[in-house]
């Protein structure tokens, strides 16, 4: 939590970490995404809202490197990127916390945090370092975990979410995509997970939060991008918008013609100090 990160708040003045321009995706003749443009800045939470079939999952799969976009480009820290696979995306500092969390239930917390990047010392796994760093990472999160030696299957949904987020931090990612992190959680646990999301933002990460839950988005997001039928229906700064307006965008799509979209882009572009 550097002092720089502290000053970055809802005005989204941070450096643009990820920028998507005119992304489109066709599956055969079916158009899943059209002309999706947005950016995410350091120290902000961008929420992506939309009904089922609005194109949210297609979009995050493109950002995570799982799908090739049919058109448009992705720019990470000012550099154009072509992802040929998820490893390219993670090499660019983009990490995705999937809905299924991708944890190994039978292994303990530390093993999951360092899954696939276990430190080694000589021919062996450096357990001492792994357990030590695992404790450090988890003590930095607001979610309480009993111990880094507890297997995942004994943890609650929120604690599992925390481990999945911790894993992203181990990987050193600074652009974090979270797919419906609270979908399977109770009220209290959801609250704690959202707290985690805000902490990530405050520590200078860019968070893309995909959600169905407008109320939770309202508590957490700095900006809200609404998708409708594969297009961007609008991008709003939370402090300058109302729940009503967002709901209308979700349901009716609002300003989904190309002219308006460009206007939204332009107004957002002004905010970017870059």
């Amino acid at each position, binding site marked *: 939590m550097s002092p720089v990160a502290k000053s970055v708040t809802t005005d989204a003045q941070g450096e643009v970490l990820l920028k998507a321009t005119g992304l489109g995706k066709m599956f055969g003749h079916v158009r899943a995404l059209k002309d999706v443009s947005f950016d995410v800045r350091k120290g902000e939470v961008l929420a992506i809202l939309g009904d089922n079939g609005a194109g949210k999952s297609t979009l995050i799969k493109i950002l995570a490197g799982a799908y090739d976009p049919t058109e448009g480009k992705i720019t990470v820290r000012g550099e154009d990127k072509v992802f040929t696979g998820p490893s390219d995306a993670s090499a660019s500092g983009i990490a995705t916390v999937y809905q299924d969390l*991708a944890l190994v239930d039978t*292994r303990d917390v530390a093993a999951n945090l360092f899954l696939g990047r276990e430190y*080694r010392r000589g021919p062996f796994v450096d357990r001492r370092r792994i357990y030590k760093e695992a404790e450090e990472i988890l003590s930095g999160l607001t979610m*309480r975990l009993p111990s880094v030696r507890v297997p995942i299957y004994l943890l609650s949904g929120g604690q599992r979410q925390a481990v999945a987020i911790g894993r992203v931090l181990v990987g050193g990612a600074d652009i974090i995509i979270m797919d419906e992190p609270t979908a399977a959680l109770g009220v209290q646990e959801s609250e704690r997970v959202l707290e985690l999301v805000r902490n990530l933002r405050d520590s200078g990460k860019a968070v893309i939060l995909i959600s169905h839950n407008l109320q939770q988005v309202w508590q957490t997001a700095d900006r809200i991008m609404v998708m409708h039928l594969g297009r961007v229906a609008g991008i709003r700064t939370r402090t300058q918008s109302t729940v009503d307006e967002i709901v209308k965008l979700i349901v009716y799509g609002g300003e989904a013609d190309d002219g308006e979209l460009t206007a939204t882009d332009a107004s957002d572009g002004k905010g970017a100090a870059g």
Partner: protein
Amino acid sequence: MSSTKPPGAPLPQTSSVAPGAGLKMRHLGILNPRTWFVRGPAQLVPERAGRTSKFDRFLDLGIYAALIVLFIFFSQASPYFLTERNLVNVGAAVAVTGILAAGMTIALVAGQLDLTVGANVGIVSVVVALGVSTWHVGTAPAVILGLLTGVIIGVVNTILVVKVHINSIIATLAFSIVLRGAALIFTNGQVKPLIDPTLQNFVSYQVLTIPVSVLILIVIYILGWIMLTFTRSGWHIYSTGGNPSASQRAGIKIGRVYFGVFIVTGVLAAVGGVITAGNAGSGGPAYANGAEFDVLTAVLLGGIGLAGGSGRIQRTLAGVLVIGILNNGLTLLSVNTYYQQLARGAVFVLAVVLAAISEQRRSR
């Protein structure tokens, strides 16, 4: 230890115990006496209290308790049981099953089953016997040929499971029938004697009364334990078995993990085949017929989950010893062999039931 923390206490910045402290004790798992009287993780995780119940802990300790109970029972019931000679017999009798079970454990932890191990022993014993007696290549080259056969079996299993995407139970079962057929063809259905006693002498050679076959068994379990617990490959085997897709997304090459696992089970079974040839003084196409079920019994008794991603190899060794002691003890007590067969079947059923119960309790 962190287990004494009251529920709800915030996670301290750093644990009061240095993470590396007590490293050696912790790796003993359930053998670590300090864990015997400490309550399980149920206390640590108030939200999920009761998930690790007394019953779970009983299941955990069960195999060691069974081992001790059987040992005490037979040592009281038969005056011959505790003799040095008999215990050496038990060791020699379980050596091959134990070695196969070590491989099966690693395969199961990775979430795969290798049912070729019995046929592997059969064909390797044949290859060794042919090498010594028909091709006259000498004992050591014949043994190497036998081990190479194990490697080839592992490669074929990998191709069937990883490249052709056949379920490992079906693939290895089918391939084992092929192997038995090949062994029958090589020997014309006959048992092939070893004309050179070198291998026999080597396998039964005793170092401080411990036969070489048992020493090999011990070395394999120590190496297996080190590999699974302390190496990155071992960690990847656990995670691949626990959640293949998550492991893959985390950058682990799971095809390579499966390849390594099938090679290890293939070679370990081949080692079993070499020892079998040495013990019998011959190679036979029907040797170790049905051994995969004894092996599975031992592994499941040891609590190695069928679903993959869990289990400890030292528990498999306990399962192997339980079966070995049971067989030996029943024979010493002159129990009718038909009833012994029944007892073996019953233990297999019990092992499967225990495995199913602990599986259900582990899944949410």
